[in-house]
């Protein structure tokens, strides 16, 4: 994944603790991939959700430090979920995910309080 947005993700305040993460994406295939990716890292996936609505519920229960939130999902808009999550949990960092590099989404996500913006998919930087 490529980090595009400015990062104020509140990871690593306590070096010894792993960062709890909730994955939100309507594609189970992708969630599975990211889960594998985060194995043996400082991140610990403590919950998953397949829609924006579900994400709000899961975040409410799990209280993660970080949410990886897909912008466009079949079961509800990720940007709406961002708003709801930030309203309830201002301390939770939300990083938006998307397949398409769209400046409008990026601007809306940052305006909505997202800590950053990750582009899903084929990262040219990882090929070398």
């Amino acid at each position: 994944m490529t980090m595009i947005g400015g990062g104020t993700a509140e990871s690593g305040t306590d070096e010894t603790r792993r960062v709890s993460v909730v994955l939100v994406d309507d594609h189970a295939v992708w969630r599975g991939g990211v889960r594998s990716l985060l194995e043996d890292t400082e991140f610990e996936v403590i919950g998953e959700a397949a829609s924006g609505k579900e994400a709000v519920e899961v975040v409410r229960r799990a209280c993660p430090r970080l949410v990886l939130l897909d912008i466009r999902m079949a079961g509800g808009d990720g940007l709406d979920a961002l708003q709801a999550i930030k309203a309830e949990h201002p301390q939770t960092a939300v990083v938006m995910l998307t397949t398409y590099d769209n400046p409008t989404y990026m601007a809306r996500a940052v305006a909505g309080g997202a800590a950053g913006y990750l582009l899903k998919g084929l990262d040219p930087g990882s090929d070398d």
Partner: protein
Amino acid sequence: LRCCSYQFAAAPGFPARSTRYNESVTSSNDTGTSVTAPAGTANHTNGDGPGSAADHRALVLETANRVAVDILANRTGVEALQHIAEAARTLAGARYAALGVARPDGQGLAEFITTGLTPEEEARMGSRPCGKGVLGLLLTRTEPLRVDDLLAHPAFAGYPPHHPPMRTFLGVPIRRGPAVLGSLYLTDKEEGSGGFSEADVLAVQALGAHAAVAIHNLQMLYRQRALLSGLINAQEEERRAVAYELHDGLTQYVMAAHLHLELCRRARAAGKDDKVGRELDESLRYLKEAVVESRRLVNGLRALALDDLGLAGAVEQLLQEEKERAGWTEADLVHNVAGRRFDKVVETAAFRVAQEALTNARKHAQGQHVRVLLLAGAHPATDAPTLTLEVRDNGVGFVPDAVLLHSDRGFGLHSMSERVHLLGGVYDLISAPGQGTTVRAVLPALEPPNEDEQENESEGEHTGSAAPDKDLQS
């Protein structure tokens, strides 16, 4: 003396629908070419003398002729109707005239075009009539209606607010065969006469026949517009669906495969051999899914089966797929076109009609048996080769007119008939509640174009699968 000049606008900037035309020679209406009616115009309104009757006939003929030319000219349908109403008003010496176009289902008016009202009167009156009262009465009559005192007529339902008072009335139905397409209405016969005369009825009837043509044109125009916008919407809808399918299917699998390959590389670098194998397996699994997904997508976009299996094979495959999805107990294809190829447009049309008809049967018919006929034959009169496709189910059936007019499903039915008509074929939809549904398309059985062209086209695309006969001959 009032000079009734009759104006024809040749320019496209025809004035707004309701204009008080030509009250005097000093009319400021200058958007079109003004043509003054021949001598006798002023006399005919009250004249029954022998000279004026002949003049009147000549005027009726000339007006009718001009209206016909007007309809043929490059105008929108509504402008032609406006002209007809104005011509009727002038001919019958009425103060006001209107032309109402019946809705296709006969329930009220689809269009109402007036002449004789000033723009102020028009603005004050607001909404147009919907076809009740005396106006509605005309839609159910096949004979003209002449009334000397409109207010005393039993069907008179009162004027809407700000409606100018009108007394004498002449209504002439506009017919096409037994169907009433609309009516011409005239009110307030001008001074010097008690009411509308028999001569007025005949004059307006002469225009009614032209109005029928103009209304028919207008309805065709509306139908074409509706079809076109339906097609554009369908195309957009299809593109959106393809975009979603790409995003939700293929893209996800490819991205997942990439992700697991990346993890595989990391695992190798870290010397974790078991993880290398696991991630590699995952990657291969997702790549395989991607290939299956891409095949599925391509198949949906283009009836590949048609190229590979020919029409009968493709319809057979389609029928089996739909049978499985719908859970029909019986689904048969009867055909006599094994191995035979037709022109691509004919094959595609037959296939798409079969597809639409079978989809409808699955979604709506609630039947158990479906039979598809695909028969090459000959036209009974011309002996020209034909290809008949028939899809019949034993389901609940429906009232075709009701569905065609009112539901979204009408679009699919229209598109089937449109496909068939575009090729010069004959399309029939036979259904009634409880009677099942039969869709029949008789298409001209055009042969494929000359073989060199087809060979070039198929080369490199579907190697070895399409039309093997041709390859043998070359």
